[in-house]
């Protein structure tokens, strides 16, 4: 498969998003055409909203962990996308003829690798994408654990993680 192209300006904007929300996780979407990203959508992380963790496919250990934390602290270890924002982004993609390409989120304290929770939820979501008329995206992680952000992109399919390389230009 051809490498995905992410413009430098969009990469910078994603890093800015991650830094603005740190120590909370940020999340969003990248869309474009023919393997070239042309638009970024910031999506609100609403994990702190009452009940949000119960409707996500978090495993029971993660839910127990989340419930021990205050709502503000929950956003440091998890994200739940605001589906109102998601719908608005999806509509914008449709209006502009763009395809969803990437779901991104940040790891303020951890490496740029999908967590067990990320892999489980992405695998559960595989059957949902076609039902909402979207292609299965790759998953981009922004780690802020070191001074220089580390950014990596992955395919997550049937619980298997593989590298999804991209070019910045």
């Amino acid at each position, binding site marked *: 498969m051809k490498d995905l192209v992410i413009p430098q300006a969009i990469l910078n904007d994603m890093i800015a998003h991650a830094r603005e929300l740190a120590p909370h*996780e940020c*999340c969003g979407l990248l869309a474009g055409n023919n393997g070239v990203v042309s638009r970024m959508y910031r999506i609100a992380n*609403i*994990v702190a*909203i009452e*009940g*949000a963790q*119960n*409707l*996500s*496919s*978090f495993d029971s250990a*993660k839910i127990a962990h989340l419930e021990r934390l205050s709502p503000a602290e929950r956003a440091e*270890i*998890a*994200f*739940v*996308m*605001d*589906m*109102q924002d*998601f*719908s608005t982004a*999806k*509509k914008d993609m449709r209006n502009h003829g763009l395809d969803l390409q990437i*779901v991104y*989120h940040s790891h303020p304290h951890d490496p740029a690798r*999908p*967590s*067990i*929770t*990320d892999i489980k*939820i*992405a695998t*559960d*979501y595989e059957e*949902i994408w076609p*039902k*909402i*008329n979207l292609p299965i995206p790759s*998953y981009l992680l922004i780690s802020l654990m070191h001074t220089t952000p580390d950014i990596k992109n992955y395919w997550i399919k049937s619980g298997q993680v593989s590298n999804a390389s991209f070019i910045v230009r």
Partner: protein
Amino acid sequence: MIKVRIPTPLRSLTKNQGEVDVTADSITDLVNTLEASYPGIKARLCDGSGELRRFVNIYVNEEDIRFLKGKDTTLKSGDEVSIVPAIAGG
């Protein structure tokens, strides 16, 4: 009859069924009908005033109800409804 797709996190309420059939003429009616068979499901989908919660979405035949008439979106026999949980991670 309307076919409703239930996402994994809600299947504990639907006796592990991934699809259930209901008769309903609107989304509000559908949610109330589901609640009658699967108590507890309504609170997971709607807030106290019956509005869809921000961490869930409902699609009717692949169209987002937020861009139809929300909870007042009408349904007809043969429609397919998908309950879609928010994209999430850790």
